[in-house]
């Protein structure tokens, strides 16, 4: 009976442990090492294969809810591009907060690279509703989908956009995604229009992206915070100059976030093992009694 009660542990006790495991590593940073997995290495290598001056699209397909997972990916991807001299077209397809995330992250990263010129090295085209329809239409004409940039400048007056009219003028799209928009980049844009796609989804939706990765409908995958921390590591190793940015005190990075995730994982593993030990102890006991 006592074992029964232990097994049916009040969920609030579990929540308490998880809360402690979340808060403590934020206060006391551990700095756990990061190992690289093949999907992230693929994404990084694909970006490294690009030449300076190439143009890619970075699509902000997430909102503030998943920003702790997606924002470090966006930052690492933008820092990678600007360190390598790749030009970036930023768009946002996620309705609630996608645009704000795009503006905030871009402003943050651009401030770290003072030589960049808006409209030449990067541009923010802003938000467009009807993600799937917009994605289809961009294959015909990006200028019709985004007639102006986020500041209201007509797209024809932006030097970078004079060179880019359709997906054919882009080398790649990097989508930071929550929900289905990331999948549309793989199964619609890549499958139908052939644009190479890298997706950085939240960890909870990462498993299904493996199917697209294996089918070569994606050029790389950054699964959740773990993927983001790996990409950060790879970018830092290749461009040590960025250490000045990542060493900024108080800056939230995926590598720091991974401390929390690792500890909470350990707590969950401990609870699962505990539950099973209690379960087996309970199973053995009646047999003894019999």
């Amino acid at each position, binding site marked *: 009976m006592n074992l029964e009660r232990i097994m049916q542990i009040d969920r609030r006790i579990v929540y308490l442990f998880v809360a402690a495991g979340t808060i403590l590593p934020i206060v006391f940073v551990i700095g756990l090492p990061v190992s690289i997995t093949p999907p992230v290495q693929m994404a990084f290598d694909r970006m490294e294969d690009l030449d300076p001056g190439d143009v890619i699209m970075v699509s902000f397909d997430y909102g503030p809810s998943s920003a702790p997972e997606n924002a470090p990916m966006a930052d690492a991807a933008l820092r990678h591009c600007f360190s390598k001299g790749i030009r970036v077209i930023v768009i946002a397809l996620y309705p609630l907060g996608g645009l704000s995330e795009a503006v905030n992250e871009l402003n943050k990263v651009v401030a770290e690279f003072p030589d960049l010129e808006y409209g030449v090295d990067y541009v923010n085209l802003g938000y467009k509703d009807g993600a799937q329809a917009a994605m289809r239409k961009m294959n015909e004409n990006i200028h019709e989908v985004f007639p102006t940039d986020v500041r209201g400048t007509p797209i024809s007056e932006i030097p970078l956009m004079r060179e880019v009219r359709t997906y054919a003028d882009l080398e790649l799209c990097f989508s930071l995604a*929550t*929900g289905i928009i990331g999948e549309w980049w793989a199964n619609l844009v890549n499958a139908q229009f052939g644009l190479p796609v890298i997706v950085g989804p939240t960890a909870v*939706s990462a498993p299904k992206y493996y199917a697209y990765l294996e089918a070569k409908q994606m050029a790389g995958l950054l699964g959740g915070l773990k993927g983001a921390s790996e990409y950060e590591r790879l970018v830092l190793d290749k461009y040590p100059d960025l250490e000045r940015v990542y060493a900024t005190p108080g800056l939230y990075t995926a590598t720091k976030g991974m401390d929390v995730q690792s500890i909470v994982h350990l707590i969950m593993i401990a609870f699962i093992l505990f539950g099973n030990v209690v379960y087996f102890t309970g199973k053995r006991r009646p047999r003894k009694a019999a």
Partner: protein
Amino acid sequence: MPISSRNRVCFLPLAAILLAVLPFLLFSASVDGQPPPETTGSTLVSETPPADTVAGQPPAVEGLTAADTPDDEGGSVTVKWTEPAGAAELGLTYRVMRADSPDGQYTEVCELAAGENEFMDAGLTDGQQYCYKVFSIVGPGTAESGPTAPASPRGNWFRMYRLNALILLLVFSGSVLYYISRARRAKPIYIRKIAGLNAVDEAVGRATEMGKKILYIPGIMSIDEIQTIASLAILGHVARLSAQYNADLEVPNKDPLTFASARETVKEAYLEAGRPDLFREEMVNYVTYDQFAYTASVTGKMVRERPATNFLIGSFYAESLLLAESGQSVGAIQISGTAEVAQLPFFVVACDYTLIGEELYAASAYLSREPVLLGSIKGQDLTKLLLMLALGLGVILESFGVAFVKDAFRMH
């Protein structure tokens, strides 16, 4: 596992797969043996001598052709050429020039770096003729290719590279429509038991007996998501039962289009059940377009009102576990269903019954027992069988280094 698994005629699938695979074989053979698409523009070899024969002058491109871009809606010509040897080392750039006739006034269209040997010139007028030249440039040195024969853009009526998709579509639609048409005459079609759908009546009855609410959550996606339509079909059934039992049904919505459709579905169901008097507008309500604000509202409702039954059927994302675990914590009987594979584990853990993938789409046929709807499931199962056989065949042949099945299914 196919849903309707009792197939009396064993040779039918085998014959069908032969029929299905045959066009793929022909297609792959025709693709392999196709002449290059730019046959309409004849080739003119460069008149400029190769660079290595003239000191200081870059080599001209060779084999320049211009032809209507195939499989497009018109308005573009594709220009192709062969790069001279060592183009990258020389740092060549190519300037593509266009004129209305071979001897006409050439104007620059674009400039490309070494490594490129193709350019699609878009925004042209269908039916008008265009000629092209390509200049190879290194520093001040320029070599000019001869002009191409005139090429004129035109719109095409079929994307040949999607022939395999069309064949698959026809095989699939054909088998579904065939079994639908047969369904009225044939014996009742067997469909395996789906526990989650069998539990629908019981779940509605339980809520009625307890005098508590039934919460129906039709996913968070819009009506262009087919899972939402499947969910509305089940909602229609649940609403009819609720009308019959006079149960308290509530449908909170995240998407405005789904909201408008769900309201119509419930209204019609109450009308059909003969109880339009029981229908109230607030039964189907709109909450917010934001995923997590919606989740907060619905989980709050679960905790405060403690519904007896929760239906979580449709397309769900990160909110799936938040909704299902909240429902579980208040002891509601929960029937879930989705085709979102990443969310299925959460539903399986926290719900009593889960409709997995295709079970969701089979629900309307299962619940209504309409022969024509059941027929469509049999047709769908036949295609699935064909795909399984093609998959098996593909794996075996691929193991022996024969790739035609894989190539035949490749989407371009």
